[in-house]
């Protein structure tokens, strides 16, 4: 009973942080059995596609040497990973339920993002998730499939700062313009461990920077919202109905 109550308070605190605080938070994956299975499924699928790699670090090493075209091809082959969204949601059921309830609209196909080291790669222009037409009631759950030992992770900008920039951009009719672009300089992505995730709302600016490493960075992310909240532009092309067990 006491444990249940403290868990509830912890989640309420997180909920408030995501709505009216910084808008993002680092969160430990609840069900590591599912999350490890997710990582192993990824390794199986990508090994078939690229022809090498027995574990996540071998895959990372092989992918770090690949061209952009080869990485893109491998990522297209990952479209067969059709249960990635379900696995990500099921690895954090209490968090998802606290934020959005049991009945959900979730991304039909979660993304796997492979970032290759080097100056010519892995620049993800700072952006808001809102720009894609997802509902303002959506959250993004982002998790690396390995420890982040370098700057290959993602950075997130406090909601208040994100909002100020958003208002300025709105006034000029721009979204993700030069102000946002210049924010890429001097960002330091946090070094998450395997089993940690970042959860953030769609108004939080985020991105990543070029990094040096022998290894590629591999992470996955999924978007979800309550079934009881309205949609925006995304519909069945992007979302599916999902009920937590």
């Amino acid at each position, binding site marked *: 009973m006491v444990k249940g109550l403290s868990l509830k308070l912890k989640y309420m605190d997180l*909920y408030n942080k995501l709505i009216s605080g910084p808008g993002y938070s680092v969160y430990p994956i609840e069900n590591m059995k599912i999350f490890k299975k997710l990582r192993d499924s990824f390794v199986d699928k990508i090994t078939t596609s690229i022809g090498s790699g027995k574990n996540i670090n071998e895959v990372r090493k092989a992918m770090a040497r690949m061209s952009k075209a080869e990485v893109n091809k491998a990522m297209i082959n990952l479209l067969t990973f059709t249960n990635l969204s379900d696995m990500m949601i099921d690895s954090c059921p209490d968090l998802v339920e606290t934020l959005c309830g049991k009945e959900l609209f979730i991304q039909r196909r979660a993304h796997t993002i492979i970032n290759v080291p080097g100056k010519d790669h892995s620049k993800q222009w700072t952006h808001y998730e809102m720009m894609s037409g997802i509902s303002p*009631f959506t959250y993004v759950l982002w998790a690396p499939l390995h420890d982040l030992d370098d700057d290959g992770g993602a950075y997130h900008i406090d909601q208040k700062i994100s909002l100020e920039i958003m208002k300025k951009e709105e006034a000029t009719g721009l979204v993700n313009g030069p102000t946002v672009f210049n924010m890429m300089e001097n960002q330091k992505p946090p070094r998450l461990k395997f089993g940690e995730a970042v959860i953030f709302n769609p*108004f939080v600016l985020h991105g990543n920077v070029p990094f040096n490493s022998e290894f590629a960075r591999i992470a996955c992310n999924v978007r979800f919202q309550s079934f009881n*909240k309205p949609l925006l*532009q995304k519909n*069945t092309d992007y979302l599916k109905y999902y009920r937590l067990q």
Partner: protein
Amino acid sequence: MSTVTITTDINIGPFKIPSNGQNMIMNNYAQRNNLIVDVIIPEPMMSNALATVQWLHKDKKFSKVILCSIHQLPNIKNRIDELLKNMQNVEFHFALEGISGKGKTFLLECINEAKIFKNAKTIDSSKTTWSELYKLMQQKGTR
């Protein structure tokens, strides 16, 4: 044993896709999934009965059908029953959702999902702003 693509009315659930756009979407889907399209069937506008394809299927015995979206499936009981009776052995592909399958259970799941989305509330993005959307999230919460 042939594969068909079907164009329908421009209004497809929440989407508005002209028939040449529908053809582009379905042909791209076919190409990505190594499907060769043999027949193109235009269903009439203002109907989601899929009656033309069912009528032709009696003679031609289609094996695969490609549509743009699950929103093109019928939503009235007698039309659903007709489709299930006539087409349950045909493999259905929905390009925008990227899903495929065959049989009564699969088709009913697709019809049900389309209904869930049809009943969901939607914010009209042409009548709002980024700031208003932010306020909405702050005021209403996310649960």
